[in-house]
């Protein structure tokens, strides 16, 4: 019996296609595959194209080609930057800056804190280590973070940290997945590598800078991505802690804007476009590391 594998075509050497004794099937399967792919792309891309086009359209014309639908709805036929100009005049730029600042701070401060904790779990022996690892990493991982928002809110409130950066930032720094990543990474560095440098008279700082840092690029990129996306996408906590206009992040700004000036469609969509474009530009070049980070946590 001759075999044809649609999804695994790349696994077949090129000549096997020619040897196929069922030409019709060989033609039908890729055709079906392409149809499915195209359907997938349409479902994903159509609403995004519509929204992108509408964000460059004067507000009174936003729905002109959408209902009844015509291809013109997918392209900005009456191009204008009005929505973006108005949006930034309203202070949307501040929300973007706030979100960016928060995400970068989380990556830097949280990265250092999680790396230290991961280092301790990976390289040290101390009393209660396993119990701590079980609670700090495993249990925390199994409890969705939003579900403990109440005690965190009340604690933050009692510190007087509502509408402050530290209130937004500090409770979100610990990331069990990132601690776990760093633990794996540090545990796998061979002791001989460090010992050899120590024998050569390197200080621990030098060991850190010239031995550990250079080989830590994948784990650093992966951890940074996880923390950046996590903070960029956080909504519940900023909504509770920083509702004040000057502190709002993009998601809060957009969700509140629906009620406030919901009929200004092109501005709402322009805001959505800006919010979407940053992580897309940031993540696409690094998607390999992101997948490595996720798959690396559970597959060895």
């Amino acid at each position, binding site marked *: 019996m001759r075999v044809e594998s649609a999804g*695994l075509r790349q696994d077949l050497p090129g000549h096997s296609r020619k040897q196929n004794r069922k030409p019709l099937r060989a033609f039908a399967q890729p055709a079906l595959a392409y149809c499915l*792919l195209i359907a997938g792309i349409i479902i994903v891309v159509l609403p995004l194209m519509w929204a992108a086009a509408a964000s460059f359209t004067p507000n009174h014309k936003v729905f002109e080609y959408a209902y009844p639908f015509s291809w013109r709805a997918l392209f900005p036929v009456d191009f204008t930057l009005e929505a973006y100009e108005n949006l930034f005049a309203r202070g949307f730029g501040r929300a973007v800056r706030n979100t960016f600042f928060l995400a970068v701070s989380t990556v830097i401060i949280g990265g250092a804190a999680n790396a230290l904790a991961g*280092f301790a779990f990976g390289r040290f022996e101390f009393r209660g280590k396993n119990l701590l690892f079980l609670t700090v990493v495993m249990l925390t991982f*199994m409890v969705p*973070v939003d579900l403990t928002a109440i005690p965190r809110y009340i604690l933050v409130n009692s510190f007087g940290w509502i509408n402050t950066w530290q209130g937004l930032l500090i409770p979100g720094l610990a990331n069990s997945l990132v601690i776990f990543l760093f633990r794996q990474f540090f545990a796998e560095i061979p002791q001989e590598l460090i010992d050899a440098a120590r024998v050569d008279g390197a200080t621990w700082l030098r060991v850190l800078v010239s031995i550990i840092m250079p080989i830590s690029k994948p784990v650093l990129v992966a951890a940074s991505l996880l923390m950046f996306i996590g903070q960029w996408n956080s*909504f519940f906590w900023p909504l509770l802690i920083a509702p004040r206009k000057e502190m709002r992040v993009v998601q809060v700004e957009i969700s509140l804007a629906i009620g406030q000036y919901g009929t200004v469609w092109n501005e709402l969509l322009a805001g959505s476009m800006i919010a979407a474009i940053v992580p897309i530009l940031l993540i696409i070049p690094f998607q390999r590391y992101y997948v490595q980070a996720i798959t690396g946590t559970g597959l060895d």
Partner: protein
Amino acid sequence: MTQATATRPAADNSDLIYSLRRWLPLPAILFMVAVTQVPLVVTLGFSLERWNLLRPQRRRFQGIDNYPDVLSDPNFFTIILNTLIITLSVVAATLVLGILLALLLNRDFAGKGVVRTMLITPFLIMPTVSAVLWKNVLFNPAFGLLAALAAMLGLQRPDMLQDFPMFSVVIVTVWQWTPFMMLILLAGLQSLDHDQIEAAQIDGGGYLTLFRYIVLPHLRRYIELAILMETLFILSIFGVIFVLTSGGPGTQTTNLSYGIYQEAFQRWDIGEASAMGIFAIILANIVVLLFVRVLRRGQAEEVTA
């Protein structure tokens, strides 16, 4: 993530480690304990109090009374059911679509990189932004794309959020999470051993047989991991529900996260909201352990079969 106890042998004789070990772990570990464990313990404490922020002077310890109160509320079961429906249907749908798309993307064709990038896009868009786009671009009963499609087909224009609120929440979440599943499974497919496939083909296995006996067992660990992580996120989705339906109409799309939010930050009943939080944490752990158990059993059958 199960080998928590499998650590490297202690490096006692290294003075790098020795000089660091005395002070380095302490602040980092203490900080982690503070930010991760204190909220859990405090939730437990609050759940034993009668405490409404609107009547703070009446705050007092009252034991476990909040728990029967939560359990006797008929809405609570709707909320639990909603949470489970959303989680199970999203995970199941993204799994099927994710496998399908990963298999398609594992072929060689022109423009593969562009297509993959496009298909990942929904995962990179903030949840509230996705919800805003779907609510206004697709679901809008007057001008939305779905309304336009229905009009073209001569059907009545549907009011999705009013008539099919749960379906709408699930669809938007599936749209968002399919790329996650797809990415992880694609990584799994790409690590598949080519020789094994060729050997199976020489032995004369059809495509479905190949998929059933070689691809699927190989993907099992990737599937397990992706399901586990996705479940943890979907159990507590908030942004999509907040924007799309605000838990409504009525309580039709209220999940645990949204229910706790309403209890704590709209009714200001901290005691009862904390008790709900404890139930939610228990539910999250049960669901995750069940998933792991089911998947493990499947794995064992695979071996003995």
